[in-house]
């Protein structure tokens, strides 16, 4: 029993050490040459454009359902006209970043783990190294850059369509005047919130992609291993989204407000 625990702790520590090493190698790869520019562009497209549909849909329906639910609650206080304020505040500070993060974990985190994992088990990573390419620079750096910069962009997109979704419900279902909704949305926006809404997805994007890469590159055990790695990547990066969100929120509240 004790041995089992010891073995478990040892492998957990090893995993953390390897993850930290990958992160530092990635940062080094971002600031030194060689730099694979074409792969970076390709990944921006893959991760950014490719995730647009899912982010648009999630954002829209989240805003809409938020309007429905808060409409009922606000009615109890006769505050229905303030629905815009609630939607903009909660979308921008919390729901936009977290839901976009979760969607990216499902789509991007798993995709990266599966792709890198199958490259490991078919010796393609070894082939890269043999041909003189550092896999971290060639594969990890472009994905991390794309994740870190596209996550905030996608979050802004999700926020925007979320607020639009809320507006549709507010106007057609709750019968709130359109102008009232929009003034209320603007009133609900503070500069601090905007900062929080942009810094969070930055950190979430980094966590999702680095976890996907780490899990993918440590794949072993053939095709079965690739399946395992994909599942692990989704689970780990989803949990990381929620956890990182909490810690970043905690930190930003101290710093910004």
């Amino acid at each position, binding site marked *: 029993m004790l041995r089992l625990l010891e073995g478990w702790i040892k492998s957990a520590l090893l995993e953390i050490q390897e993850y930290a090493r990958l992160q530092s190698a990635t940062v080094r790869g971002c600031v030194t040459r*060689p730099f*694979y520019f074409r792969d970076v562009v390709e990944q921006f497209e893959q991760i950014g454009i490719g995730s647009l549909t899912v982010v648009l849909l999630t954002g829209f329906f989240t805003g809409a359902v938020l309007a429905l639910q808060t409409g009922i609650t606000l009615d109890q206080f006769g505050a229905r006209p303030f629905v815009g304020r609630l939607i903009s505040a909660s979308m921008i500070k919390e729901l936009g970043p977290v839901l976009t993060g979760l969607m990216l974990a499902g789509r991007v985190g798993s995709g990266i783990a599966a792709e890198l994992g199958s490259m490991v088990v*078919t*010796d*393609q990573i*070894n*082939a*890269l*190294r*043999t*041909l*003189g*390419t*550092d896999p971290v620079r*060639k594969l990890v750096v472009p994905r991390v850059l794309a994740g870190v910069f596209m996550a905030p962009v996608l979050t802004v997109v999700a926020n925007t369509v979320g607020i639009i979704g809320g507006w549709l419900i507010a106007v057609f279902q709750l019968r709130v005047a359109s102008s009232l909704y929009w003034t209320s949305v603007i009133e609900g926006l503070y500069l601090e919130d905007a900062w929080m809404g942009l810094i969070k997805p930055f950190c979430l994007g980094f966590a999702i992609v680095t976890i996907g890469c780490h899990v993918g590159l440590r794949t072993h055990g053939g095709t079965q291993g690739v399946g395992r790695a994909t599942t692990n990547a989704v689970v780990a990066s989803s949990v990381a989204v929620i956890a990182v969100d909490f810690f970043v929120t905690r930190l930003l509240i101290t710093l910004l407000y």
Partner: protein
Amino acid sequence: MGFAAQRSASLEEGLGAGSPVLIFDKVSLAFDDKVILKDISFTVIVGHTKIILGASGSGKSTILKLVLGLLRPDEGIIWVNGERVDQMTEQQMMKVRADLGMVFQEGALFDSLTVAENVGYKLYEETDMPTDQVHRRVEEVLGFIGLGEYSDRMPSELSGGQRRRVAIARAMAAKPRILLYDEPTTGLDPITATTVDDEIIKLRDFENVSSILVTHQLRDAFYVATHEAVRRDDGVLQIVPADPEKSEEAEFIMLKDGGVAFEGYAAELRASSDAYLKTFLS
């Protein structure tokens, strides 16, 4: 076009004809508690072929990965091209790999790139060679292995034998002085296997490439050892049986239980009376 890696004059002289380009000295490696290689020693001479035989799981691929620095030995010393590689960092190893080409067991082609991009990968991405020159070299190499018209295909659209040949083309594109082949003919029909063997012979005899050939296809091993490539008077390349002296440029080693069970030439291997060798040969 010259070779991939530049060498100083003295190193060039030191690695001239008859000298070893690759040395394993008492190399041992274990995965966890399982000993895979134990005190393995051998050398590969410039322009010669070392043919490694052995049952499945005997550590043949592992030896090639040690040469490339993809794995590190637990004990022992490995020299490649006059440099000691067993203690090198990944970054130092990149310089040594510039002069090495590897044909992986399953080909390991990049499946997101076309055949031409695979073959030219190293030249495109890791050298300053102008693009049109790279194109010419890719065409040349694809012509060499007879897959010229396949350059825009994806690897998934190729047959197993074609993939193997593309893998050879990729390994030789940057003109390395040492080529490592990991079971390049396993699973191929005898005709295709012979074309692959012919490529190996041509590279050895016309480009003076030193090589390690891992296989458990004895037919191919003996074929490579006992044939040579010659250019006829009308310029056509031909593969012909080699004289006995030439076939001593190919040496066999047989791995068994982590050690070397046999070391010698084709003729000696055929004549051996060792029981294990006999079962392996029959």
